[in-house]
């Protein structure tokens, strides 16, 4: 019984690690030219300011949002959008 509990804990830990891998969006401001594709693709994560540059909400990307975030990173024409792991 105790062995079963241990393995459950181990699985739990591994899952927690996976989930707790915090992903965040980052912008290389020297590259960003305000094309604005990111704001269309990731409307929940960022908005555009009055000059057309993205304003990040700054919250971590949840595992469910990760696929969309990766797509947006690939879609940035200036290669300015990045996804970082912390």
């Amino acid at each position: 019984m105790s062995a079963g509990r241990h393995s459950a804990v181990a699985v739990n830990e591994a899952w927690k690690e996976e989930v707790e891998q915090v992903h965040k969006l980052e912008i290389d401001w020297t590259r960003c030219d305000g094309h604005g594709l990111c704001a269309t693709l990731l409307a929940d994560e960022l908005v555009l300011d009055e000059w057309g540059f993205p304003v990040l909400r700054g919250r971590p990307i949840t595992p469910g949002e990760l696929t969309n975030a990766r797509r947006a990173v690939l879609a940035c024409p200036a290669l300015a959008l990045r996804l970082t792991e912390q």
Partner: protein
Amino acid sequence: MTILQETPLQLRVIGEPRLLAGLREGRADLQRHLWTHGAAPELTRADYADLTTAVGLRGRGGAAFPVALKLADLPQRGIEAVVVNGSESEPVSRKDRLLLTMAPHLVLDGAVGLAKALNAPQVLIAVHDGAAATSIRAAIQERQDHLRIEVTDTPGRFVAGEARAVLSVLEGGPAVPPGRRVLPTRKGYHKRPTFLSNVETFAQLAVLARLGSHQFSSTGLISEPGTQLLTVDGAVQRPGVIEAPTGIPLETVLQYAGAPTDGPVLIGGYHGQWLPRPDGIKLSRPEVPVGAGIVLALTADTCPLGEVHRVAQWLASQSAGQCGPCLFGLGALVDDFSRLLSGDPAGWHDAQRHLGLVPGRGACAHPDGSARFLASALEVFGEDVRQHLAGGCGRAVRGLLPVPGGIR
């Protein structure tokens, strides 16, 4: 109002002179330097780690990062260079060029001593002032350090003094900060581990190496003992560089420089913050944002918002133009301030909005620092804002805050 370059270097000391010791009669050549300070001891990396930890020495370029932490972040081997950042891009600061011009050997002792302790093969010195470059080159000729020492001239632009912009210039690149935020201790000169700090930090290290932590701590605060170099300018009778113990009351510094003690004071330079009055403020890092040690005094008979507007124009002109929010945001803020000055309340509202859109959105700290400066002006000069919105404050802009090159 571009009297910046012509102002002769004036140095004064409150308390015990350390960095400025022996400079009363002028520049210290090698002989005078050795006579004043004695020979430099040869210390190990562990010695430097212990000494900087014991006295809590912080970098003197503005960010006030603990030197001991920077040393601890370097790998055990493979350190490419020790870089002395003498670009002193903060326009009012005079302390670094004063050290390079008057006490070059003290700076070299600090940099060479540390480079040898870290087994770094070279010392790179970035300078943008002509006299400072001449002095440091002459000093290198006088010495035999058995180490490569190179002096490089950097452009005088504000953002060119940022650590990674300096590294870019040393590598032969443009004088702008790169987009990726990496630490020089990990990926510095040619992407190799590098120890980079401000000129004064190295001079402090040279003094610390000689005195030891006990004697070094005989003046100043317990948290960060020793002295600091301050540049005092603005509405003062005796502008210039003052060496003073850490934690000195701001009022004492102002009285010493002959400034009014009832007017507003800007500390930390044009990325710094305004204080309505100097009362009760002690110059200690990092609680008080002393930055690179700049103190600017204003009199009550000039329009403070007009003065800030002039500086805002200059700050906007100093954007490298790499990052949209900095380029457009600072430009918009200049416009907001000018509308506010002419009594348009929309200028104030727009300024508040734009101040939220600028910080943290650039490759370097220029947008953050500029926004901090402007936000603190709106806060501290709230009464003046009301007067302007009600028709004007009735005072002229005297141009007491120096702006290099004037306004475009």
